């Protein structure tokens, strides 16, 4: 489903953030990505849809493959249509209501007729429990509500994989639960997703695989039981000790 080969990213001349990363993810996998701050988790996720252009490496999602060495605009747009991203700061379109936010890509990218787009939008707003706020602008919604609309917007384009970059870390503590519940529900329905998070316990609960990143590499890769309950890698142990304190 997803295959990343020899992905590396260097900012400027010498800031090597990702160092030759390779991994594969199967359909219906729920993969959590953990790791200390600044190890390149966001960069890796952003490379998957070319919000950040990799220095080297190939990325395949579904049946679209893009090689950093020779990528075209059309290939990149095609690759982006294979995934959908949920951002830490929601990034809803501020000039559009909840419903219009979800409809936007359906109309502009997938060229669906308005009525059909609206029907799809309402379906997914219902799924995240935001049907009653369909006509609200982002400025009139709480962070948790905005993030659930963000999830609906990502789901609506029917992506092969959902990419989450710390979807709850900008939220007030009392709003984290509603968003985590939405993600958990998706995980139970076996939506393929990659989830960068600092919520170790949540990752332990919903993921069936965990990648531990450290210093721009994948330092450990395994099931939640292997990674969290029985960590072998010393850096991973240090990290888990640190965050559980």
């Amino acid at each position: 489903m997803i295959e990343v080969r020899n992905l590396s990213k260097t900012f400027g001349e010498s800031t090597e953030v990702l160092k030759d990363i390779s991994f594969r993810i199967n359909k219906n996998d729920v993969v959590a990505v953990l790791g200390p701050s600044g190890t390149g988790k966001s960069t890796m996720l952003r490379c998957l849809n070319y919000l950040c252009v990799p220095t080297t490496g190939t990325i395949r999602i579904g049946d679209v493959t893009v090689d950093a060495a020779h990528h075209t605009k059309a290939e990149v747009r095609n690759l982006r249509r294979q995934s959908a991203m949920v951002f830490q700061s929601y990034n809803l379109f501020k000039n559009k209501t909840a419903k219009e936010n979800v409809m936007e890509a359906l109309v502009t990218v997938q060229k669906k007729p308005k009525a059909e787009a609206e029907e799809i939008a309402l379906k997914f707003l219902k799924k995240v429990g935001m049907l009653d706020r369909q006509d609200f602008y982002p400025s009139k919604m709480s962070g948790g509500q905005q993030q659930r609309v963000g999830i609906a917007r990502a789901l609506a384009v029917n992506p092969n994989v959902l990419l989450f970059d710390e979807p709850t870390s900008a939220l007030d503590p009392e709003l984290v639960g509603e968003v985590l519940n939405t993600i958990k529900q998706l995980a139970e329905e076996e939506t393929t997703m990659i989830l960068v998070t600092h919520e170790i316990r949540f990752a332990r609960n919903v993921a069936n695989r965990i990648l531990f990143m450290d210093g721009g590499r994948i330092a450990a890769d395994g099931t939640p039981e292997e990674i969290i309950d029985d960590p072998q890698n010393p850096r991973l142990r240090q990290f888990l000790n640190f965050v559980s304190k």
Partner: protein
Amino acid sequence: MRFNWEYFFETLPLIASKLNVTLSLTLISAFFSLVIGIMFALISYYNVKGLSQLLRVWVSFIRGTPVATQLFFFYYGMANISSIILNMSPTVAVAVIMSLNMGAFVSESIRGALISVDEGQREAAMSLGMSGWQMTTRIVIPQAVRVALPPLFNDLINLFKMSSLAFLVGVRDVMGAAKIESTQTFLFFECYACVMVIYWIITLMLTFVQRRLETRCNAIY
């Protein structure tokens, strides 16, 4: 000395009758400064190589020198090297300088509005596979317009007041009419009071519109 109210009220309509000159100067320059401002703003927004650095120098030059000097430099100074400027009517020369001058300010207002649309929304649009054109026309511009309107209206008010420079090169606008009238009657107090009242009333009206616009802009979303 007492203020001659009778003369004041007699002269007011006389001077106000030159508002058409002042207002057409303002509107024509507003149009061209908007065109210039949009062009400049896009060049610096898209960071066009070479041009955007050049523009930054130009904007800092325009903002850093008095507009009266710019007018004299252009109309009297550059007339020596260009026959087009030599044969230019003073009204056109004033409009040119007003447009060039305000264009620099307008470009800053527009650029500020464009970059006020946060990077996150643009990333969201791109990550969904929207094209640059779709993103700009459907997400960035609708939001930028709302942000740009109040400062642009400010620029318009400044432009209106700036038009009073025209009398310096002999244009008979509101200010020019007052100058001519006062040198005949020596009632400077009353004549320039007329000018102030006229400018003030128009500015108050524009400010009123601006307030309304601002509340409407803020209320939408």
